[in-house]
């Protein structure tokens, strides 16, 4: 069987469907020439990655941190000529916080979310973003199957991650458009992702089923982490009783 260069590349990139992958792997076992072609593609990929890898460990230049920090204070980061200045940032604080947080981790979230009307929903500790206040309470106490009407936090699905931790998706209704996923560590809920949510989770009149209307980045993280199926109501209640410890 002949495999095109593009097929060999797609295999090296993990992009082949399972059937083609199996066919190629079977052929590779008896065809050293094909195995060499695959190895060549993998070697290039590994070399490029290794060459650029050290960039990840470089200290972040202060000017980049300042630009993440500086924009909402208006006009502080105006030293970049190419940027067409907008009149003013139009993100709300939580949206801005979510973007800034994903850029630099937890560094800037604390002071930002302190300004949220209901107090901080998030705090940072040792470079991690942890749930706090009403969010932490809801993650620990609220069952997806039994949510108080008008609760500020709406829990989506609860599940076991592959590493055994319990994780839950949530929507911050009060802040309108923030959704995220948190996993339970020993002492706190650690945020894995926090995203701008395009659709409000529920209207005044209606209730949406758990797990619907989450931003793609949240569902993507859920797919990456989840082991098996989401917890059913009984398993969820049992996990709460155990304090969400594995």
């Amino acid at each position, binding site marked *: 069987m002949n495999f095109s260069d593009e097929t060999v590349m797609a295999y090296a990139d993990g992009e082949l469907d399972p059937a083609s992958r199996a066919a190629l792997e079977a052929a590779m076992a008896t065809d050293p020439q094909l195995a060499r072609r695959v190895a060549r593609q993998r070697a290039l990929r590994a070399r490029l990655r290794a060459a650029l890898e050290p960039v990840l460990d470089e200290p972040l230049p202060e000017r980049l941190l300042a630009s993440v920090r500086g924009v909402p204070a208006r006009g502080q980061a105006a030293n970049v000529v190419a940027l067409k200045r907008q009149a003013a940032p139009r993100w709300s604080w939580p949206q801005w916080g979510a973007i800034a947080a994903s850029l630099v981790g937890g560094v800037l979230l604390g002071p930002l979310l302190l300004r949220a009307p209901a107090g901080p929903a998030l705090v940072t500790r040792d470079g991690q973003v942890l749930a706090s206040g009403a969010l932490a309470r809801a993650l620990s106490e609220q069952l997806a199957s039994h949510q108080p009407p008008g609760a500020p936090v709406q829990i989506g699905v609860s599940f076991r991650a592959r590493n055994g931790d319990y994780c839950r998706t949530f929507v911050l209704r009060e802040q309108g458009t923030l959704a995220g996923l948190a996993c339970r560590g020993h002492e706190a809920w650690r945020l894995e992702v926090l995203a701008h949510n395009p659709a409000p989770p529920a209207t005044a009149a209606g209730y949406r089923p758990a797990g619907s209307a989450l931003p*793609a980045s949240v569902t993507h993280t859920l797919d990456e982490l989840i082991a098996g199926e989401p917890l059913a109501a009984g398993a969820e209640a049992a996990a709460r009783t155990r304090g969400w410890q594995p």
Partner: protein
Amino acid sequence: MLLPRLRRFARALAADVNDADDLVQIAVERALTRGAQLRPDAPLSSWMFGIVRNAWLDELRARGRRARLFAPEESAEQIGDASQGAHADLLAVQEALARLPEEQRAAVALVLIEGLSYKEAAHIMEVPIGTLTSRLARGREALQEMLGETTGALR
């Protein structure tokens, strides 16, 4: 934490450290001032990679204009005295990347270095998947040729 990955992507595009950080800074400011529109269907990281790339395309256009207006300037070479081996290979890889056409370089950087899926990379570059894979294939062949089959540095 997205910033280090954005810096790595920018470095693959622009090679020079300061140019690369300029791109990231522009992208951060565009993102936070909403100079670019957030696409709710895509992860935030894809959106940011797309903004970095667009900033790079703007920069290339601006360089084209400057090159027509001014005599070409010698680019100041940065000689790092960092550890020889790894640094030499970074330079060799960056030199090879710099010789690729921009669209091949972006495809290589997103898929081979950032490890994104074809779908995500095509989305960021705003091209169909078939276009992405053919750019990627051409970029790969050119890099294999430039970098050679061994790990020897390009000299």
